[in-house]
């Protein structure tokens, strides 16, 4: 006889396999095009020179990572709200997977920013409001994963994690507005101009296209990783339930 638990997880497995395969292939293609756009298609920034001009190309991958992190943290809010309303553990798994992938992208944002900052600001790190709030956001979400591991009961863990994820999201708009509201040397490329910015550059139409390609590429990569991890978390719960069934 087949376990009811494992059976429920295998429902719709075939269509998810196809979705995952399609997303994986799309992600590989999209990231290849994104790299091409960032390294060859985008013209060099005309107001910069030398290492600073070369490092400016990091901007595309930096923004790509940034959109991946934003998508992850935003998705975790959606997952948390739906879990709290429906009490369906699948949405808690969406939340966890989104935060994990968002964290990878968030760390990517910080690290790419550091390699851009060295030739531009002559330092890898400075306690600028934007950099500080970004680091806080990554740490807050890292704490989410540690916090989850401390609770054994699945529903209790999901409830507390959902509330935590909702509160943690407050750090995202704070990071976004930090370079606009506080005195920061971090450039603001779109929207309000930052007069204290160092290493800023104007973005022409071809650069905008390269940026859009990268944003789309990273969104696809994010989706592929999210589905992959979400399915794995379902497997983890299936194993845990099977273990409980035997005990």
């Amino acid at each position, binding site marked *: 006889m087949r376990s009811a638990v494992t059976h429920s997880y295998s429902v719709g497995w075939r269509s998810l396999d196809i979705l995952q395969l399609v997303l994986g292939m799309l992600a590989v293609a999209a990231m290849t095009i994104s790299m091409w756009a960032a390294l060859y298609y985008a013209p060099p920034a005309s107001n910069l020179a030398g290492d600073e001009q070369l490092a400016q190309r*990091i901007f595309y991958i930096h923004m790509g*990572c940034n959109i991946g992190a934003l998508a992850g943290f935003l998705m975790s809010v959606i997952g948390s709200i739906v879990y709290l309303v429906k009490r369906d553990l699948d949405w808690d798994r969406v939340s966890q997977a989104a935060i994990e992938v968002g964290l*990878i992208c968030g760390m990517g944002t910080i690290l790419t920013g550091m390699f851009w900052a060295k030739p531009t600001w002559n330092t890898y790190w400075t306690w600028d409001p934007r950099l500080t709030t970004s680091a806080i956001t990554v740490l807050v979400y890292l704490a989410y994963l540690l916090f989850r591991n401390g609770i054994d009961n699945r529903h209790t863990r999901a409830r507390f994690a959902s509330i935590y994820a909702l509160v943690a999201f407050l750090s995202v708009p704070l990071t976004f507005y930090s370079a606009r509201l506080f005195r920061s040397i971090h450039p603001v490329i779109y929207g309000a101009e930052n007069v204290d910015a160092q290493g800023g550059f104007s973005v022409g139409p071809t650069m905008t296209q390269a940026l859009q390609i990268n944003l789309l590429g990273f969104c696809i990569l994010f989706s592929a990783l999210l589905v992959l991890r979400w399915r794995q978390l379902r497997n983890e719960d299936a194993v845990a339930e099977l273990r409980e069934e035997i005990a």
Partner: protein
Amino acid sequence: MFYLMMGFAVVWLLVTLYLVYLGVRQRQLDAEMQALREELETTRRKQT
């Protein structure tokens, strides 16, 4: 050139490490699931 290369490499390194982690975790889960299924089957056979 060094900073540009490192900026790109670090992202790919993070993604690769995450994929390796997912792969290792999946292999562990598959093995654990198989062992549990066999254990469950043995227990049921003994009961009947």
